[in-house]
């Protein structure tokens, strides 16, 4: 057996799994998105029509799709920097030589990641209740009028962002912590001897050394946050006035609530294209940034 064939043989199980559980469904979904598969087609396959790009065309003319995209972009644009900033801040605090009880705080800050969304959403709904919620109670003591957190279309998305950031920052924090611990201590010592301030140490040692980690985390977070679904599903059901309906939520409604699988697949592919474009852009910027630096 020549080495090439052996290599393929070793690859075969992985390729088979990828093919059956990833590639084939993706191709099938693409085919599905070109049809109007719905309840009637489920009843009788003769009711299935090939509609070419009609699903996409209709979606692009549907205000709800654009508002869902706007809500998702809002969530990503605010949520990702906020989430990464919180993660980095928490990681820096935990990594500081001054920190005490590190294992305890590490566990405590990571805990929201491993709790179930549904269970904590119940608690958050109580916290943010307009009349009985703790948040408004505390704000009331500061003389701030009660805010209708989950009922006001302007406040619902910020609340969802807060919830998502709190729920997810622990995961990135652990990755940042690992990245921070990999930075050699002698760099800081040298900077300290040269009289560099803490800010300049952070700016010129920590950030550049964390570069690859930052890039990876930002790509993972962006692609994760584009798939916003569970948080509005359990907190607001997409409301009020559809102000927390994300692209994925729209897909869920189309596909599983109304059983329009054709149009739901089209939503999925549009979201895939958008995410693909955004991450490709991020990679390109990162590469250009690297090229600019002297090797």
């Amino acid at each position, binding site marked *: 057996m020549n080495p090439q064939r052996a290599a393929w043989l070793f690859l075969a199980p992985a390729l088979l799994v990828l093919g059956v559980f990833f590639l084939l*469904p993706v191709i099938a979904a693409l*085919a*599905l998105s070109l049809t109007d598969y719905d*309840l009637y*087609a*489920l009843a*009788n396959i003769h*009711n299935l029509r090939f509609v070419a790009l009609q699903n996409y065309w209709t979606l692009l003319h549907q205000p709800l799709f654009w508002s869902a995209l706007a809500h998702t972009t809002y969530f990503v644009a605010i949520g990702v920097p906020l989430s990464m900033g919180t993660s980095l801040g928490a990681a820096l605090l935990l990594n500081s030589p001054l920190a005490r009880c590190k294992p305890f705080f590490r566990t405590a800050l990571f805990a929201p990641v491993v709790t179930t969304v549904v269970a904590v959403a119940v608690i958050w709904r109580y916290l943010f209740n307009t009349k009985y919620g703790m948040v408004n109670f505390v704000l009331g003591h500061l003389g701030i009028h009660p805010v209708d957190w989950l009922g006001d279309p302007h406040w619902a998305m910020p609340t969802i962002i807060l919830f998502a950031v709190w729920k997810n920052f622990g995961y990135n924090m652990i990755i940042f912590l690992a990245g921070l611990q990999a930075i050699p201590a002698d760099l800081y010592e040298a900077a300290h001897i040269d009289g560099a301030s803490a800010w300049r140490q952070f700016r010129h040692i920590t950030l550049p050394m964390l570069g690859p980690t930052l890039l990876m985390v930002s790509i993972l977070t962006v692609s994760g946050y584009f798939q916003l679904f569970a948080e509005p599903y359990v907190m607001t059901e997409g409301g009020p*006035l559809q102000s927390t309906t994300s692209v994925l939520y729209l897909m869920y409604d189309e596909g599983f609530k109304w059983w329009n699988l054709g149009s739901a697949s089209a939503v999925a592919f549009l979201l895939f294209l958008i995410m693909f474009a955004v991450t490709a852009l991020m990679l390109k910027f990162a590469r250009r940034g690297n090229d600019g630096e002297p090797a």
Partner: protein
Amino acid sequence: MSHGSRPRRWLHLRSMRCGLLLACVVLGTPLIGGCGPAAAENHQLTLWTIGREGEAIIQLLPDFERAHPDIHVNVQQLPLTAAHQKLLTAFAGGSTPDLTQLGNTWLPEMVALDALEPLQARVDRSTVIRQDDYFASIWATNVIGGKLYGVPWYVDTRLLFYRTDLLRAAGFDAPPRDWAEWRRMLAALSDPQRHAYGILLPTNEYEQLMSLALQEPDPLLRDNDRYGNFESAGFKRALTFYVDTFRLHQAPPITNVEAGNPWSEFGRGAYAFYLSGPWNIGEFRKRLPAAEQDDWSTAPLPGPHDAGIGAAGGSSLVIFRAAKHKDAAWQLIEYLSQPQVQQRFYDLLGDMPPRRSSWAGGALHVDPKARAFREQLERVRPTPAVPEWERIANEMQLVAAQAIAGELTIDQATAEMDRRTDRILEKRRWILDHAHPMTGAAR
């Protein structure tokens, strides 16, 4: 659709093939679902219930199983939020139960899928189930394309809960009978400064607007349910009345999520009216203190000219076409349809029976708070029997919420409702016009 007729045949072959592929790959379940465990020799009936009914029915079943020792009933409770999805997935996967509880707005969908067993022949032979004993409109919601697919199990219609003491204090001795009178009472009872409103109408629930609209003579869909009919004069009157209630600050523009606990708010007098269904009789009895129990009552829904017309809601019992024990399933339906069993069911849960003879005795007969329901049930009207109705009603309410928020005028809102409805019904029109006979109705 802009396709010519010639490419379509080829497309059909192609779409059939890809449909098969998709059915296997994407839905995944048809092949797997067929190989479920074989049925036991004894009749193991599987019954799905939706929502709270499951808990009550378990207490009714021992009597049935004593009378039919060869039948064992296996009850599976589905939560309301997941039930619709579960029913469709079960159909796609060929793993439907023998019989299920099915809301009568979902019935047309299951019939379009050709998933249900026609029942008229069994009813004709039955000594227990007599059609003329049932409220006519409720029975009619189970008849689609001239065929009977379900037996009504319990009924639901929305009407007015009101605070007798608040009305009396404002100088009204009786609940309103028509919209003009209702408007006067709402105006007298609302005081937005004190956070007191005439009525609570959650802006994300379509049942209230739909109940008002059904009182008008114009149907909600037109031309054999091919197009929306929201621009009719009747619907515009209903929508105007509904939206005006918010614009005049007689109802707060909030959703049911924000309303939180409407029962205690009603008890505190934050709302004098509450438009809701029969289960709330039990809720108010349970949640309001004994001293306040004489301060509320129910009244038929006021209409444009006269009270007492509402939406025909509720659930039916249906047998699936793929059921293994249809006869045993029918025996269970007959048992659950007996007036005395329905009376026990009401005692357990407060679900109102669909038969007049079930109302003739027991706790229901003497309950003054159930009387308005009894009156209205004779005059309820069914919602359009198309599979798309639930979605259309949702879209109707989304647009209505925009009108409440002042983003759309009545004319703009109704035009938008018709536009959305016509788009949703496009496939239905195509199927009605198409050479292929509509499934379900054809077989």
